[in-house]
């Protein structure tokens, strides 16, 4: 591990520039990465699925998939990976950095777009650039999946209503024969205008010494 550690230190500046985290934060995240991967260089899906705390999460599948989605790597690539290295891990995490309060309006808009893009990619599983009704239905069903026996019809009704709302807001006048293909990214942005993504979608990354981090041990 010594060799990779020094290699990593060389890359700190590189990583900071790419992801925007500070050195301390990168160090902490690297430690977590090591823990998850069992000291390997790469993390596979199984490694993430082994995290016990995720079991209660209704959308864990989507979350794990998002880590392996190439679209979230800021590189205009599509498809999915089987394993990710630390840099890719970091890139995905960088979507959840809080926006700097001193940032200008344009910077905030860019950050907001980035975060919304992440969400959009999570919904748009077949990567055709639009969220179709089926995909949206899946989203709602997954959300309700942990709540006991929910009739799919209700989930469907909710998804349908939501879709209708998107369509009504964005394309107000459609002839009865027109077909609304799905939610494009612009429409997605429009309907989520009310939620301030740049201030809601973030978690607090630790700056301090990792000893204060109470990591969930994989074996517990």
């Amino acid at each position, binding site marked *: 591990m010594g060799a990779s550690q020094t290699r990593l230190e060389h890359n700190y500046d590189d990583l900071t520039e790419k992801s925007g985290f500070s050195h301390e934060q990168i160090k902490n995240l690297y430690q977590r990465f090591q*823990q*998850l991967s069992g000291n390997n260089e790469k993390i596979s899906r199984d490694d993430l699925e082994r*995290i016990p*705390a*995720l079991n*209660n*999460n209704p*959308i*864990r599948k989507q*979350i794990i998939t998002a*880590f392996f989605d190439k679209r979230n790597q800021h590189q205009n690539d599509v498809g999915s990976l089987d394993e990710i290295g630390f840099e890719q891990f970091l890139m995905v995490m960088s979507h*959840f950095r809080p926006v700097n*309060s001193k940032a200008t309006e344009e910077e905030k808009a860019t950050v907001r777009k980035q975060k919304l893009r992440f*969400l959009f990619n*999570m919904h748009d599983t077949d990567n055709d650039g639009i969220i179709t*009704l*089926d995909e949206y239905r899946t*989203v*709602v069903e997954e*959300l*309700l999946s942990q*709540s*006991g026996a*929910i*009739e799919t*019809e*209700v989930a*469907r*009704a*909710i998804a*349908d*209503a*939501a*879709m*209708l*709302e998107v*369509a*009504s*807001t964005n394309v*107000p*006048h*459609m*002839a*009865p024969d*027109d077909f*609304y293909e799905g939610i494009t990214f612009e429409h997605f942005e429009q*309907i*989520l205008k*009310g*939620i301030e993504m740049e*201030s*809601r*979608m973030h*978690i*607090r*990354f630790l700056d301090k010494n990792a000893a204060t*981090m*109470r*990591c*969930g041990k994989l074996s517990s």
Partner: protein
Amino acid sequence: MPSRTVSHGSSGRLRGLFLVMVLVFLESSVFTLAFASSDQHSPTTAHSDGHKATDHGSHNNTGKAFPVLDLNYENVRVPFEISLWVLLASLMKLGFHLVPHLSNIVPESCLLIVVGLLVGGIIRGTGETVPPVLDSKLFFYILLPPIILDAGYFLPIRPFMENLGTILIFAVVGTLWNAFFVGGLLYGVCQIGTESSSILSRIGLLQCLLFGSIISAVDPVAVLAVFEEIHINELLHILVFGESLLNDAVTVVLYHLFEEFSGIGTVTLVKGFLGVISFFVVALGGVLVGVLYGILAAFTSRFTSHTRVIEPLFVFLYSYMAYLSAEIFHLSGIMALIACGAVMRPYVEANISHKSHTTIKYFLKMWSSVSETLIFIFLGVATVAGPHDWNWTFVTVTVILCLVARVIGVVGLTFIINKFRIVKLTTKDQFIIAYGGLRGAIAFSLGFLLEKDHFPEREIFLTAIITVIFFTVFVQGMTIKPLVELLAVKKKQEAKRSINEEIHTQFLDHLLTGIEDICGHYGHHHWKDKLNRFNKKYVKKCLIAGERSKEPQLIAFYHKMEMKQAIQLVESGGGIKLPSAMPSTVSMQNIQPRPPTKPAAERAIPQLSKTKEEEIRKILRTNLQRTRQRLRSYNRHTLVADPYEDGLSDLFLKKQKMFQIEKKMNTYLTVPAPPPDSPTMCRARLASDPQAYSIKPALNKVPMIQVDLASPQSPDSVNLLDEFGQANQQEEEEQGLMMKPPSRPREGKKPGEEDEAKDQQKLMRCLSDPGPSADEDEDGQKESS
């Protein structure tokens, strides 16, 4: 404010007439009160003796004339006066809104204080003594609780919890800072700045500190009254308002601490330490008491399904008991009330009927509105009543110090807080927070409670308190609105919560929790998630009756939205087209993917031209819109068993009928084999139905009504009324329209049926009276009358 639909010409005259009436009423009420207060001193025993004597006399002397018209004011004096005051307050409130433009410039609270001053002035002008209306007992036990309960019950939990740390720091540390700063500096000024013989130099440090603690608390009533009208963004509103609520604990502790110390005269370190401990006891104890009563109320509401009429009463009583119980132990009553309201709300609302919900909402708003009005009027009257002791130095120094302390406190604390916040507070925010620190009637009442023996300078204090209150309410209250405009502070977002936002808020919650878990540290979201799961698993099962305990939040939200849409439909006059914010022709048809593969049945499509289709639709629609009178069976005890009481059900049925017809028609156009009833027959039957609805005795057959958000053209629109497929057509014809459970075999696209029990409950909730436009999103906002 509701817009007046009266024509402009006559409205002017009507307004004038009304104002004249109000003024006449004002005069007469004032004189009555004045007369009454002078009567206060007449011995009631003599009167009753006289009464007895006349009775006795009339028995003995049958010659004496029987009093046909007798005047006996004493018996009804107290209730009469109370009613008069309340009526005065309410009329004033009405009157303000009639005068154009006045309510835009001057906040209501200012006007009310002026009215109070006027009334007090008139009473004094007639030579009578002004009644001591702002009696502390009256204030703390009668006037204040409704306002606090209203605030607590409708507290927006999410922003409150998200900003809890900030709010607590402002409330606790901010108030402490204010109290000590003002008290300490005031003492310094009194000692140094004046001659040793003047009255000021005799004020001790403890008295000054006590005064400081009284004057430093931001007042929730005043904040509510002023912030109500400026519609500021949610964050700032919750920060200032939350601070005003939570600083009660600090105020209570400091007040009792210094009062006791002043009485004794010495301070020891132990006592100081005990003071700190007592703060925690007061605050946490108050919250605990509140939570306890809240859980009790939630549990009680679980069993009220058969006595819906008294449901609101439980909410009010338990909350009031929480307040009083906390006051018994000198705990913070306000925090108890807030905790009680906030805790009981989600569970109670899941259990009670829609009517009860509306009742609770409107009663709370009504009481709190009246209370607030009365408080401000009484403030005005009490100002006139005195006793005053004006001391230029003291008063001006107090006002200046209060302002300075507030500004320094807010700026300093924000500097520290911003280190821990993600969404930092900008300078504009800080300014509004500082400027919004209004003092109000609580400070006055606390000052009033001081005993004269311990505090010879009580009058000076009271005068200063009143001056500060006037200053903050008038100056700050009046100027905050233009300042908000000037500084372009973010206003409250009026948009209602859409279902997309709800879905994504929940999605985001889970996403962030998941990321935190992957990251490995237990942050904000992790604990919130844990709490939610605990709530769902144990608490909800206990406190919510029946099936609703398992209903996930998203579905609950969806149903709420459907209800609201339905209510909107009723109020738009029964138009078939759902009123939407943006007129849109998008319907479910546009969204559904092209029918990929139809199940087995081959659909040969006989072509009917579109125009013909439209014509048929129009005919059906117009025929179905004929309204019919319903049989009203009113029974005070069984509100629930009367689902047909309102136009709402009427409309539901109409809508259902229409959808049914539409659907049938659509299938006629696509399916070759027609069902037994053709549209024309159905139409004939409906149109000729003059009979009343009869309530099906077996309530367990009552079906669920689900309103689809889709427009009528949708093939997917939902309804349950499936009269056609029923075996017992004959029975149906006689009884007219009846609701029956849906028949099992149905076409694929309908939503599934749910349990019978759930049906029943849903119907109970859905079909009860929605009342005037119940805007459930405006929970945190009081409706201006």
